[in-house]
């Protein structure tokens, strides 16, 4: 893995990723090496941020112990996914969206930023939402794909559903929030785990292929639009007919 990818992962975990970095990470979400780096960085960020508050009050000896402890735990982690508590990061991120005070707790300086400047508040929230959504998507896809038998915490799923509801509410309005959430629980699984999608196995039966061909023809006729869509809809029909025969 190149340094650019590591840089992108680091930026994503720091909520500093731009669009390009986000896409770069998501495009390689299946890469085993990337998952290992993601897990390692997550662990570091998680440990650092969860202990930040009390860290500044600790003595230098304790700091050394903590550093050694974190390094040891990283070294001994055979599978980073199992050790990560995603819910902490998700909860923290959701809290950020709700505009709660974010304590950045700069070590040594002890600076506490209560909230972003009023003028930047909206932009901060939007950026955070994008970053949080990406982080959660990433976390869920990492958990679902390699570890189908891992029981993902309810908190993560609820957080994901909440995020999804937020985005839909922005578009659709807030109607039917409960049913939306119940329904989306299924979609989380459908999108993330290929096993839960009711796929019709190939090769299709002759009856199925024939019916499918009818639908494709009808869909092609709907899509032709007097040449607006070009050749593609018609090519799809011809291609399927060849394959069927």
């Amino acid at each position, binding site marked *: 893995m190149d340094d650019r990818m590591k840089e992108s992962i680091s930026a994503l975990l720091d909520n500093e990723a731009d669009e390009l970095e986000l896409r770069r990470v998501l495009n390689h979400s299946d890469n085993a090496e990337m998952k290992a780096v993601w897990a390692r960085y997550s662990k570091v960020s998680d440990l650092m941020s969860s202990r930040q508050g009390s860290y500044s009050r600790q003595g230098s000896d304790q700091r050394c112990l903590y550093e050694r402890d974190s390094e040891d735990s990283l070294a001994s982690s055979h599978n980073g996914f199992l050790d990560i508590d995603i819910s902490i990061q998700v909860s923290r991120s959701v809290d950020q969206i709700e505009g709660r005070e974010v304590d950045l707790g700069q070590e040594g300086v002890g600076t506490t930023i209560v909230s972003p400047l009023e003028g930047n508040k909206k932009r901060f929230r939007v950026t955070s939402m994008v970053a949080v959504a990406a982080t959660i998507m990433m976390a869920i896809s990492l958990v679902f794909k390699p570890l189908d038998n891992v029981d993902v915490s309810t908190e993560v799923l609820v957080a994901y559903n909440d995020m999804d509801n937020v985005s839909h509410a922005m578009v659709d309005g807030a109607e039917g929030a409960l049913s939306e959430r119940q329904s989306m629980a299924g979609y989380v699984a459908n999108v993330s785990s290929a096993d839960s999608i009711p796929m019709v196995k190939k090769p299709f039966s002759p009856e199925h292929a024939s019916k499918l061909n009818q639908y494709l023809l009808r869909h092609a006729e709907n*899509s032709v639009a*007097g040449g607006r869509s070009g050749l593609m809809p018609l*090519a799809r029909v011809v291609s399927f007919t060849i394959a069927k025969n």
Partner: protein
Amino acid sequence: MPLRQVKHQILPRKRFQLRCLQVCVCLLLLTQGFKAIAEIVEDPENNALSSSAQKVSGEAWLERMAVAMQTQSYRGVFVYSRGDTFSSMKVIHRYKDGEDREKLVQLDGEMGEILRTGDEVVCVLPGNRVVSLEQSIPSGPFAGAFARTLMPKKDHYFIAVEGEGRIAGHQAIKVAVTAKDVYRYNYVLWLEKYSGLLLKSVLTNADGDVLEQFHYTFLELADNISDEELAPNNMGDVYSHESLPSIQASSDWPAKMEWRIDWLPDGFMPVNKGLSGQGVVSSSNVQVFTDGLASFSVFIEKPGKGNMPEGVSVIGATVAYAHRLTWKNHNYMVTVVGEVPIAAAMRIAERVVPDTY
């Protein structure tokens, strides 16, 4: 040791990398600058055109493509692939006196043709079986204006010119159209530099897997296409395909009812009705939607023997999801067919409900 230093020992150092990047970019720019100057000195005319072509925005190129696909006359051979299937086809397209005609001939396997004259589409399928297709989307004099309203929008795609290339002997502009949400696919299009005609397209999913490709191997822009070239090679008796059994005709359903689709991916518009937005209502049992690039059709049927097996059938970029739903003890089948991700098709199908009044 400060926390940030601890972190930076483990995580990459951004500032250092940024510096390196800046130095690399400067070197690259200098190299490219010298190269460009050298090229301009060698061929100033072509490079002036190249520069102006790249200044045109991605959206403008897509508009140009939509117009060219209808109004440009050409003949060519292209390869179309989806999944593990490849097909080569010959196409002849003519625009004359305000009418466009097209003939598509499959070059692999059994003989098959598709002929289109304006609104009319006739498929001559293998075995000399002829199917006449109905036109659901407006065309003719208003097609251009209609097409412009259905151009892919910036709200739903990132549209960017990504350079130039050469396809089938033609200079091409590469335009990347990247979906902003999970309910549509990504496209990379190569458009002929002078006309905007589509020379190559690659459709990928969010993981970057190629689901469908279209690629000209030969293309000739021509104004001398005769009627003979567009005439069918082989024509048997014409059959109209059977219409879907309508639920409205069933005695156990309310006589007056319409179908409502409670959820659509943002930006998709119904194209055979003047309706838009969420909660689209239709009295027809077939409805088609498009966002300007992708399209899907929603079929609503009475459950029966001839129905598709429930579940998802995938052929390249095309997905067909058949789903049985119940309303007040009445069953009905909803099938969504289109070039959209499975998650979108499933979610749409599950939100089709009857609207009685």
